[in-house]
């Protein structure tokens, strides 16, 4: 834009409203642009801002898959570490938001696969810049996954659900749960075992269809 030209109010306003309509909400977009611009001049500061802005919503999203606050935080921290180590900010073509959400979802999936020993689905690559994981059906599959997990857990018998949540979400040890609920530690172990079996069973039949030959797209 030529600074000597007088600003034309009309066109500016029109541009802004177009922007709003397309994106649907001003604030998140502005923050993204702001962080991206900070990365141009001060990478470390940009990274700090990025972390502070997205850490909480990402953790909240992750816990819907793994049901443990500690694991969720580990996963999100890992995603940020990856981001830094791969210097994603230098080559990224999508928003940081999109990249980070996809990265966190993939790690959640890998964690679930490890935890539930699901032999069927394959490992997912870390989020690639080629946005292969942003295909519409893949996105919705991830949505369906956390919704399904929520339904399964909501369907646990009450005592079972209570023990599972105290352990995973509450981070309580088996002994603490046993003391709190006045049951034996063995009973606690049995509840957790049963919960995992149920999760394993329900998610086993739930395939995440992997696009064959992912590497070709990178």
């Amino acid at each position: 834009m030529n600074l000597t030209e007088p600003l034309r109010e009309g066109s500016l306003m029109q541009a802004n409203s177009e922007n709003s309509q397309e994106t649907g909400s001003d604030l998140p977009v502005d923050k993204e642009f702001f962080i991206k611009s900070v990365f141009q001049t001060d990478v470390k500061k940009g990274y700090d801002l990025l972390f502070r802005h997205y850490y909480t919503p990402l953790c909240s999203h992750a816990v819907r898959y793994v049901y443990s606050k500690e694991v969720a935080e580990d996963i999100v921290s890992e995603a940020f570490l990856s981001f830094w180590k791969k210097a994603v900010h230098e080559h990224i073509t999508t928003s940081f938001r999109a990249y980070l959400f996809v990265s966190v979802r993939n790690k959640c999936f890998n964690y679930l696969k490890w935890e539930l020993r699901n032999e069927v689905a394959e490992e997912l690559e870390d989020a690639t810049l080629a946005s292969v994981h942003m295909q519409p059906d893949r996105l919705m599959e991830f949505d369906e996954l956390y919704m399904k997990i929520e339904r399964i857990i909501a369907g646990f018998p009450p005592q079972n659900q209570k023990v599972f949540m105290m352990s995973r979400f509450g981070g309580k040890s088996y002994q603490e749960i046993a003391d709190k609920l006045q049951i034996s530690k063995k009973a606690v172990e049995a509840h957790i075992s049963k919960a995992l079996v149920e999760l394993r069973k329900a998610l086993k039949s739930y395939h995440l269809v992997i696009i064959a030959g992912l590497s070709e797209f990178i």
Partner: protein
Amino acid sequence: MRPELTKHTVFTYFSGDATTLQKQIIADWLAEGRNVETYFEWLEEWERTQLQFQPNTSAALLAVTEKLLREEESAPRRLTFPAKKAITKTMVFWAAASLFIAVFGSYLGRDFLMYRTYKTAFGELNRFCLDDSSIVVLNANSSLKVPRWGFGKSTRHVYLEGEAEFSIKHTTDHQHFKVHNADNSLITVLGTEFVVYTRPRQTNVVLNKGKVELSSNAGEKPLTMLPGDRATIEKNGKIKVEKLSEAQLVQHSAWKQHRFVFNDTPLREVAAKIHEVFGVVVKINDKELATRTATGSFPAENAEELLSNMSYMYSFEIMKAENKIILIPNP
């Protein structure tokens, strides 16, 4: 005629309450590339209105930053440049510094460049994934060295000092996973779960699942371990095996929940353990007190907590001197 898709619809969908019809509308909407970004904007916004919990962001950022700094220290591979525009003085400084470090680093040893080291501080636990998706939980005051290149090409080698629990992923080409211990003994696995303890005073391995082969540096025939086995390598290199009960097995991973499990353990050994894990020196000047044994499972995130949890049961008082803790028997 297609109904309008609004943010409200998508929020309803994220909450799990969308109808099949609404899901189809969303699927069609997402098929248009540019809407993917909007999808994520709305996902972020929705999450913020439905936060499942409030983590401590500052603490997490601190931890991540420290981790990055530690890794830069142990292997300065890439120093990022602050500005892309002009060549600033800072850039020149970093160029010179990285050159110096590269030369210095390679002089000091291939270690810095060839291996990536995971370390834990006293009282710290670290859980992480290796490139082959194996999961490692590293106990306090421990380090695991992993080759930067070639890991997973033909064999997977790692070097452990301290204590860690491994959940090794079985690869499709049946690659071995080898853990080199501090005393030069070697653990070979295909895919399994086990806990290794390897510090100056002893090396032992507890197997939870799968099969593991253990060979000590005494050149004896390697021993094959089965689930539930605990193998201890004695000072002369001989390997002793015992079968553990379910309860005892669980005890060996108790540290993952910041718990200490003792079974007729003399307080002298408890003191040694505290030193290993927390780096705190504990002195027991009374001979009788040092031989008193402790049994039980104690939660503790630091030395003070563990000792105060035990003080009532084992009748001792805790006194803090400049940089150590002294235990005095309670008459």
